[in-house]
């Protein structure tokens, strides 16, 4: 590199602008790829974009905090997007109110299943308690899950990653799984993916069907609450 291009790189790599553009481009490309494959589950736009951004950071030896300085503007919109879930929820309010009983039962059963199954499998691999605690809230939306882990003495940054991987895994699995089970109820399909795979699952559900997306959003919100309340007790039973 010549001195001039090098100083341009030093300047750009430290401004939020570059990493904001990288994030948006990675998404735009990943979304096109996903569309080109007719939203095939394996062409998950989050997964493709995350891998591409990670490669760019690796090639340019950029640290995550420097990247996040730019990407945080996109990250910030997660909050308003969660608030905006009220809009499809209100539009579908009649169906939602009609479904209140199955929702509540599926919520408690699913929430406990998500915690117990993850911890039980990890115990079979002999993982230390600190990893088990960090794994337990993996189906909950990231801000809540990290808070739970922190309160119980786990590692919140590990939780954040496990949450992300759970989201991607669920959104890849859900469509083929539900089709093979012959589940035709969009409410149930959406609710399951929102509960098991929080916001990333909800994003997938909205791509497939807006009613499914609405129920996924509800499940994500409710599961955050139920897991925060239940997890300390369930974990005590499992780890003692």
């Amino acid at each position, binding site marked *: 590199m010549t001195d001039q291009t090098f100083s341009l790189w030093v300047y750009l790599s430290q401004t939020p602008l570059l990493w904001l553009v990288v*994030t948006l481009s990675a*998404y735009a490309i990943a*979304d096109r790829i996903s569309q080109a494959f007719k939203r095939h589950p394996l062409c998950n736009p*989050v997964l493709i974009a995350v891998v591409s*951004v990670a490669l760019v*950071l690796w090639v340019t030896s950029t640290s*995550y905090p420097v990247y*996040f300085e730019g990407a945080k503007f*996109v990250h910030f919109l*997660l*909050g*308003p997007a969660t*608030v*905006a*879930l*009220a*809009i499809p*929820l209100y539009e579908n309010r009649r169906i939602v109110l009609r*479904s209140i*009983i*199955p929702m509540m*039962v*599926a919520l408690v059963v699913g929430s406990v299943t998500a915690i117990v*199954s993850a*911890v039980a*499998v*990890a115990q*079979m*691999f002999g993982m230390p308690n600190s990893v088990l605690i960090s*794994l337990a809230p*993996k189906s909950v*939306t*990231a*801000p*809540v899950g990290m*808070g739970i882990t922190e309160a119980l003495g786990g590692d919140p*940054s590990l939780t*954040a*990653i496990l949450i*992300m*991987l759970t*989201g991607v*895994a*669920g959104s890849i*699995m*859900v469509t083929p799984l*539900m089709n093979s*089970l012959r*589940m035709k*109820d*969009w*409410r*149930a399909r959406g609710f399951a993916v929102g*509960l098991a795979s929080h916001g990333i699952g909800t*994003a997938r559900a*909205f791509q497939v*069907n807006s009613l499914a997306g609405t129920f996924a959003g509800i499940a994500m919100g409710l599961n*955050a*609450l139920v897991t*925060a309340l239940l997890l300390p007790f369930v974990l005590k039973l499992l780890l003692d």
Partner: protein
Amino acid sequence: MIVSLTLILFCQLLGEVVARGFGWPLPGPVLGMLFLLVFLTLRDSIRTKVPEFGRALDGTGKGLLAHLSLLFIPASVGVIQRLDVLAEHGLGLAVALIVSTLVTLVVTVVTFVVVSRLSGSSMEDNGEVPSRD
């Protein structure tokens, strides 16, 4: 659009204030969603007098939700910081995540459908499932 965005952010702010103020284990934005829901309910009654009231809100909100996937990218890239733990417990964590997610999806969907039938709120005949979507 600016008014709608302000309203959404205001609901989030209110949610954060209430959640932190009372020390509830609920994230501010989830409470904010409830506040926006209250607003939407009120909007319907105001609209009978002022039909233009809050009309842009639906477009702004749906615009945000249409690209929900994008918003998870910055946090997810954080995976590069913890590749060491993933390498150490990688196999066990992968099996635990995949098995648990699969079991949770199946248990939740089956519970929902069964209880829905038992409680007489079944909706399975509405809408079709495309072979691949």
